[in-house]
């Protein structure tokens, strides 16, 4: 087990595509770090550089304090789980899991001990004689993980391991992965494009975009304190609403002037923080879950305004409504008991304690 350090790593593919543009990241021992971001943002490339499957154009990668830039994958003491599992189709589950140890000339009974141990952790003891073809998607997934566990490596690397599973199994395997990590406690780097997966699994989430890290932090942090518009929009489902707003000096307090003559008072404790931006056109970021029907909570800094939903989506445990303010689509999350009908005006409450103000030019959260 070990820490992993990425220091200013850059990857430029032949042909000049810069897939990773200077990534800095320190991963602690035992930590579960998830790289998340939209497709093509350089997550896999980063992971594959850690694995040694891609050359590093610039920068350093260290595993357990040892710089591994020039060390081939087999000597890095890592294990990897691939999206399509990459199980050897001609080997039984047992042989698949033991292959790495066989190549490293481990004694037979040691291999058996380790494979059986991993099989117990993953609950696949009864599948050891089967060929991958005879396994279901979830079982293959477990075998792929078993192959990693058996090696007892310093680092686990996962590249979108759940993307080939159906939705239900994905949730189930997510829990499974978390459980395995709690058992073996191996440092893990996990790549996914699914922010829910990232939030649920990670000790720390690394949000990437266009080959750079946007923000690193524990899931709750990213949710409550995104530092960029990209992270604010990427984390959370349904995504945060962005409404054009002008920051104005009201009588005593700051005020946000929204289109359609809606004006919202800025919470007094944020006055100082936002004063430099008075008079500027900004974006108000507010999550659907903080834009609800009027409730009697007695909380401070709740403002109300009127809107007519254009689309109503009952989800069961909540109802989503969509409406437009000057071209900006807004989504709000209502209690299913609240009657909502397309076209009928209703009063909505905004929890301004949860608001974010974003500078549209720099994309930074103020």
């Amino acid at each position: 087990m070990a820490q992993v350090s990425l220091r200013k790593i850059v990857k430029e593919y032949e042909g000049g595509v810069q897939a990773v543009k200077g990534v800095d990241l320190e991963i602690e021992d035992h930590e579960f770090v998830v790289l998340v971001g939209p497709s093509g943002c350089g997550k896999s490339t980063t992971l594959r550089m850690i694995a040694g499957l891609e050359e590093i154009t610039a920068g350093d990668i260290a595993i357990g304090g040892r710089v591994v830039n020039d060390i081939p994958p087999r000597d890095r003491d890592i294990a990897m789980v691939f999206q399509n599992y990459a199980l050897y189709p001609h080997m039984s589950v047992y042989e698949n899991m033991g292959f790495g140890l066989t190549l490293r000339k481990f004694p037979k009974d040691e291999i058996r001990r380790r494979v059986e141990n991993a099989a117990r952790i993953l609950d696949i003891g009864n599948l050891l004689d089967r060929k991958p073809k005879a396994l279901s998607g979830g079982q293959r997934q477990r075998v792929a993980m078993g192959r990693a566990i058996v090696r007892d490596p310093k680092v686990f690397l996962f590249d979108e391991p759940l993307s080939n599973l159906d939705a239900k199994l994905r949730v189930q395997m997510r829990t499974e992965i978390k459980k395995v990590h709690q058992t073996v406690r191996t440092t893990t780097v996990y790549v996914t494009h699914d922010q829910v997966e990232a939030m649920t699994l990670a000790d720390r989430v690394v949000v990437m975009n266009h080959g750079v890290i946007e923000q690193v932090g524990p899931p709750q942090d990213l949710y409550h304190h995104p530092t960029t518009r990209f992270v604010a929009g990427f984390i959370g489902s349904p995504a945060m609403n962005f409404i054009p707003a002008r920051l104005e000096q009201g009588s005593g307090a700051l005020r946000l002037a929204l289109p359609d003559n809606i004006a919202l008072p800025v919470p007094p404790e944020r006055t100082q923080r936002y004063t430099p931006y008075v008079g500027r056109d900004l974006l108000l970021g507010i999550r659907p879950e903080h834009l609800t029907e009027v409730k009697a909570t007695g909380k401070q800094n709740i403002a109300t305004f009127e809107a007519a939903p254009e689309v109503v989506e009952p989800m069961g445990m909540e109802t989503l409504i969509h409406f437009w303010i000057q071209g900006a689509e807004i989504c709000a999350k209502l209690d299913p008991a609240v009657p909502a009908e397309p076209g009928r005006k209703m009063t909505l409450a905004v929890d301004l304690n949860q608001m974010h103000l974003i500078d549209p030019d720099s994309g930074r959260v103020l």
Partner: protein
Amino acid sequence: MSGATVAQPADSAPIYHKAGSLRRERRRALIGAYIALAVFVVFFLTPPFHMLMTSLKSSAEIADLSGNPWIVSRPTLENYWALLSQGSYLTHFVNSVMVTVCVVAITMVISTFAAFALARMRFWGSTALATGVFLTYLVPETLLFIPLFQTIGGLGMYNNLWAMVLLYPTLTVPFCTWIMIGYFSSIPKELDEAALIDGANHFQMLWKIFIPVALPGILAATIFAFTVSWAQFLYPLAFLVSSDQMVLTVGIISDLIRGDTFQWGMIMAGALMAALPPLLVYAFLMDYYIAGLTAGATKG
């Protein structure tokens, strides 16, 4: 094109046709199909059938112009017995086997390594080489046998069975390499990477992953190499003269035709036994045989 060639009924008003007429049309198409098939099966199997009949006849029955040439009235195995007990048929058979085994082994070693390198390890000129391999596969043996005749003579290998082992690979290796490039390329790249992480070097990757996973392709290539070397006719005809060096394809005619006397019964018996190995391979490994046949054009 007859109506029999189309499975679906050719109905001009598809919205209105009734289930009954549909079934009837389909039945008629199927019957037409079977008739066409039967005609061609008869055409295709006539020579081997006639070969078998003749091989079971005595010389006297063959020479008897009043009998029916298509059927045998007093079947006998004397032709087979004569071939196997005297003369050099057995020598030719053994020679054929020896040459074929060596050629198949050489071919598979050369083309497996080459295909692995060309499919997985990009290096300078590798694409050009892959194209070159394909072009070589298109070079017919009739184009180069005369300079090869000189070269073989220069090497002192004229009338030497081993010259065949040297030459046949030019006919087998290109195609085998080509189809194995196709099979190897279809193995997902993650499999190599998993093996790399598991600690395999390139030879282990080839031996423990690629060859077992691409086994159907290897088998198809092996069958191809076998059929080509078993069937080769021009090179042995041009380069081998003495009976003890000959292989089956040339041995049968050179031994059993003396001047104007044709021992047709023995020729047919010998031909039938010579055709047997490829037929057996085909019968038992038909799917691989066909895969190899079609892979050349459907892969890569």
